[in-house]
């Protein structure tokens, strides 16, 4: 077993609630027909935190992500980033405000090479316009160069630089997942939502990715993480919010959550169903 190189924050560093929140959801609720998929979820995330969002399958975690990023409109509630309400905005506008996401099923532009994928994702970073692109003005070309440099730096950060000419659709699974993270980072986000970034990865790949996530925080990006790998979640998160059937059942530091009876029951219940 490879010993993970990620250094967990010491218990004294772990604060139960952030003093100043950069992001929060207030009473976030979504009905699908008569079913309440997400019920009254209040998340509060402080600048530079890594917060875990966990819960059994079907608990509504990905729906929370879709509500935050504008892919689904909430039935009620608010999504606040630095004091601005984002509810009702389109996904691209929310990305423009500084919230990036990855997808549970690794998504890329499959016919593009890795570097083309990054260029497409670097759209927000460079701000290269349509009309100046037709005339290839010199400010346009310098923007294009800066997008390329930024893309290469981000690829280097996640370790995909050697794969830059590979066609994205042919990449191994773990690399596709990392490409998704790199593309989200290419938008230069303030808050990054990772939807099961470790799913389907080998032990070494998990450790690598955890290092990258720690590195993302070190670069000043706040992270909200959905993950089923409990060992990894407990190791890397400052705080954890547990939901089940769309409702919050527990929150706190990893130690607190681990000992929470409700949480144990929810996971055991899920295990019974699975068994």
């Amino acid at each position, binding site marked *: 077993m490879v010993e993970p190189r990620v250094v967990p924050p010491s218990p004294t560093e772990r604060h139960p609630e952030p003093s100043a929140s950069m992001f929060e959801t207030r009473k976030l609720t979504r009905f699908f027909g008569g079913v309440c998929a997400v019920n009254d979820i209040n998340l509060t995330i402080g600048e530079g935190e890594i917060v875990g969002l966990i819960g059994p399958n079907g608990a509504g975690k990905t729906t929370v992500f879709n509500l935050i990023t504008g892919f689904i409109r909430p039935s009620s509630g608010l999504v606040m980033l630095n004091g601005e309400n984002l509810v009702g905005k389109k996904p691209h506008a929310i990305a423009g405000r500084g919230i990036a*996401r990855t997808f549970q099923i690794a998504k890329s*532009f499959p016919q593009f090479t890795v570097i083309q994928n990054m260029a497409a994702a670097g759209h927000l970073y460079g701000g290269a316009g349509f009309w100046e692109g037709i005339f290839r003005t010199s400010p346009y070309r310098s923007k294009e160069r800066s997008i390329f440099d930024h893309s290469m730096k981000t690829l280097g950060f996640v370790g995909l630089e050697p794969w830059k000419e590979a066609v994205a659709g042919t990449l191994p699974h773990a690399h596709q997942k990392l490409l998704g993270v790199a593309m989200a980072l290419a938008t230069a986000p303030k808050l990054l939502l990772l939807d099961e970034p470790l799913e389907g990865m080998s032990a070494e790949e998990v450790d690598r990715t955890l290092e990258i996530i720690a590195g993302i925080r070190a670069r000043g990006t706040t992270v909200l993480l959905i993950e089923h790998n409990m060992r990894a979640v407990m190791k890397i998160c400052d705080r954890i919010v547990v939901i089940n059937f769309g409702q919050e059942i527990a929150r706190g530091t990893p130690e607190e959550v681990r000992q929470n009876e409700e949480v144990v029951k929810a996971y055991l219940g899920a295990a019974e169903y699975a068994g």
Partner: protein
Amino acid sequence: MDSGRSRRIGKGALLLLVCLLPIAMRGNDYFLHVYIVCAINIILASSLRAMATTGQMSIGQAGFMAIGAYTSAILAAKCGIPVYLSMLGGGCAATVLAALIGFPLSRIRTIYFVMVTMFLGEIIRLVVFEASSLTGGSTGLMGIPRPEAFSFFGLLQIDFSNKLHFCYLVLLLLLIILLVLYNIHRSHAGTAFAAIGQEESLSSSVGINVARSKVLIFSVACFFTGLAGSLYAHYMTVLNPDAFGTFTSLYILIYVVVGGRSFFGPIAGAILLTLIPEFFAALKEYQPYVFVLVLFLIVFLLPGGLVDLPRRIRESVRKAPLEEAR
């Protein structure tokens, strides 16, 4: 000499040949006619490809061509507006319609988009057919002027009733349009358009405004399609709504599919499929069958389109010695 440089010289020589061909064949009216039709078809196919990269595969482009053609023809023939301006007006009319219907169209995808655009094209044709006081209806619109003659500082007398001169007008517009489309293709926006065509939700999650991008490229494509229509109107000098039916739209789509989806694909497809019926004059009344045959051959033997042919040949040549060694 490195291969990049020799390839550039090869491309330059090809371009020069294409530019000089009409002069070399100036006595041959039939050749010039085919050349002009070819150029117009290339504009139509390349424009369709540009919008198809975002997943908007239309079979109603003949409708936008009709709007360009009739707007320009009516402005020039009935309102006496200079042909150069009326042609611009034809392109703009097609763009305005595209921008208006672009937003609702941007929300529908795949086969639904195809169906809606097909009916749209047919509606436009029927409107042209019914508005006979303005468009001449089924009897056609006649007496459309050629662009006005002018002279370059008294040195060069340009007269567009001369087919050779008209040929160069078409070529000039073709090259400008292809340059614009090529710059879009390799620009950042072009990458975003192709991204939308592959993964719409991922595109929006990285900040690409999907609806705006789709409407933008749809409008640009329809501007050039309208312009191609007005070129057609002032070349033929006679218009009939039958020229803008669904079959015309389908042919434009077939040029793209046969040629391939890369930038040069529609150019190759439009040239080949314009020339085939001309070379085999006896086949002209069977044109739809010939097109379907070519389409089948391409889809089964060369799914990447005509532009994929050099790569396939190179690969088979590289493979052959290995197989012999075995």
